[in-house]
């Protein structure tokens, strides 16, 4: 068991917040997903002027 723990210790950097234990890479990806979600909501979608004239 001690040997396997030794192997795992070198595998990446981890963030610790109380009971939460997460790898830095996973936290970065989750943060990036939230940023993309917010940008998708706020950034206007490009459209052609012809679309405004066409009936919906």
């Amino acid at each position, binding site marked *: 068991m001690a040997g*396997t723990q030794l192997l795992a210790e070198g595998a990446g950097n981890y963030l610790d917040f109380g009971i939460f234990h997460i790898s830095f890479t996973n936290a970065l990806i989750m943060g990036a*997903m939230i940023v993309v*979600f917010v940008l*998708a*909501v706020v*950034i206007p*979608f490009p459209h052609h002027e012809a679309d405004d004239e066409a009936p*919906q």
Partner: protein
Amino acid sequence: MSAIEDTAAKTASAPRTSWTAWARYRIQHTVPEGQWLPDRQPSYVASWIYVFGMATLVSLFIVIGSGVVLALGGSEWWHTSNVGHFFNSVHLWSVEIFFAVMAIHLWGKFWMAAWRGGRALTWMTGMVALLAAVGTGFTGYLSQTNFDAQWIGAQAKDGLNSVGLGAWFNALNPAAALTLHIVVLPLAVGVIVIMHVILVRRHGVVPPIGAEEPTS
């Protein structure tokens, strides 16, 4: 009236006289006319948040395509050759993107309350597709044929045993994990995704809260 015209007229007026007529009727009426591949959408669809469903679908195609290439080459190929490494990476990163855009698609639809307007089944098939995809991802970890797969398999075995599922699924059986990963679970994901897309086309994309849905 010719014989062909006569037959056409009869099948059009009596669509349930045979299984082919029944199937044709179902295909024609599953979604409203012109909605299988629509070329116009309501104005509220012009938002980036509506892009992520299609992004999920496109990344799924790349996942399946790269997985087929890996299946043709085999583990000795994808672990040792440059081209094998490339397709291994394409498979990994298309899966990463698949789950990321699927999660953003889920967030968007959750905050839009996308189950409104008779779309409960669309929402539920999406959730089941997510669960099936997670299972496919987990068995993918077990199918890498490397020490990573061994480590994850041992952890998964302990976890499954602790909740009493070890009798039904042995995470340390690589043949079972690989077969589930490349046959059973992709088939489940594929069928559920097709159902989900058909339901989206049947009911149309959900309007934002407060927006009026087009009547036709």
